[in-house]
């Protein structure tokens, strides 16, 4: 019961942060709020027993992500211009999508059900066999590196590819193009 109340409290704060992000027009504040959102969601992950995920979210969401957002702000602009579009169409779209998703959750097993389809199957096998097979206490590490090592290799490759993409887009490796340079290249 206590867990339910903690969850609810965190949710109220999460929704308040999300609404603040929606309404704010100073992008510096938006960045800070996104950081707060990450920290709150890390707390929620702890109450949901996902300590590894909470660790990652706190390190990535509140740390690196904020730094990158701020460096983007210094390269672009810091105020969002007011939009002239009416918010009606987006509201209708999100309401319909949300209603569809909620309709989909109605058939789902209760939160925390130990016999839901997600709990039986391959996860139960991992929990039962990893102590004899691999003998490492942290099952998350075991599944990450050993049982699903191929998956993790793909993820590492994706991280590498994304980094290479960023370097191709904005790295200082190539001589920086200025307006004068373009003309020179065209004439030569």
């Amino acid at each position, binding site marked *: 019961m206590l867990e339910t109340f903690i969850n609810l409290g965190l949710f109220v704060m999460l929704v308040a942060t999300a609404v603040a992000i929606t309404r704010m027009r100073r992008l*510096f504040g938006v960045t800070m709020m996104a950081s707060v959102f990450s920290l709150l969601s890390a707390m929620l992950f702890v109450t949901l027993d996902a*300590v590894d995920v909470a*660790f990652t979210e706190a390190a990535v969401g509140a740390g690196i992500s904020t730094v990158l957002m701020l460096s983007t702000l210094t390269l672009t602009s810091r105020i969002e211009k007011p939009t002239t579009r009416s918010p009606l169409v987006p509201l209708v779209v999100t309401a319909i999508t949300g209603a569809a998703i909620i309709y989909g959750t109605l058939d789902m097993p209760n939160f925390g059900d130990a016999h839901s389809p997600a709990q039986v199957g391959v996860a139960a096998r991992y929990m039962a066999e990893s102590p004899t097979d691999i003998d490492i206490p942290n099952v998350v590490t075991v599944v990450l590196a050993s049982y699903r090592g191929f998956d993790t290799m793909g993820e590492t490759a994706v991280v590498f590819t994304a980094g290479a993409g*960023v370097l191709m887009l904005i790295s200082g490796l190539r001589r920086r193009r200025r307006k004068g340079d373009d003309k020179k290249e065209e004439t030569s």
Partner: protein
Amino acid sequence: MRHHLILRVVTKLLIGPIILFALYVQFHGDFSPGGGFQAGVIMAVAFILYGIVFGLEAVQHVFPSWLVHKLMALGVLIFAGTGVASLFLGYDFLDYGAFSPHHPSHGQHWGILAVEFGVLVTVTGVMVAIYYAFAMRRPAISDEEW
């Protein structure tokens, strides 16, 4: 950030512990929350913090960008190389039992260590490289405008 004296002193004190903590998260990941992904991010934070406070030239003197770019690819190679090594020992791809045929669980320990190290190297490299890429560009907003 020449004028922030306290920030500079505290940063100097913090960078060592941050790297130590990253290594702890990396090598204690078998027993407690943590692993290559988290350790890589924390390790990158140490360099990014140094870069923010002391400037890009200072951090690139310590951790030059050619090295960062090599590390990005090296991590994936370590990961895939572990798999290929087990392939050559006559086992399946990424089946770490190959490294210690008499005690498959010991082989698993070695394999997981190697693979997590590869993840650490790639994630550190990518995060620092992304930070360098953003920090190298000329800002559109000057410091005073904030």
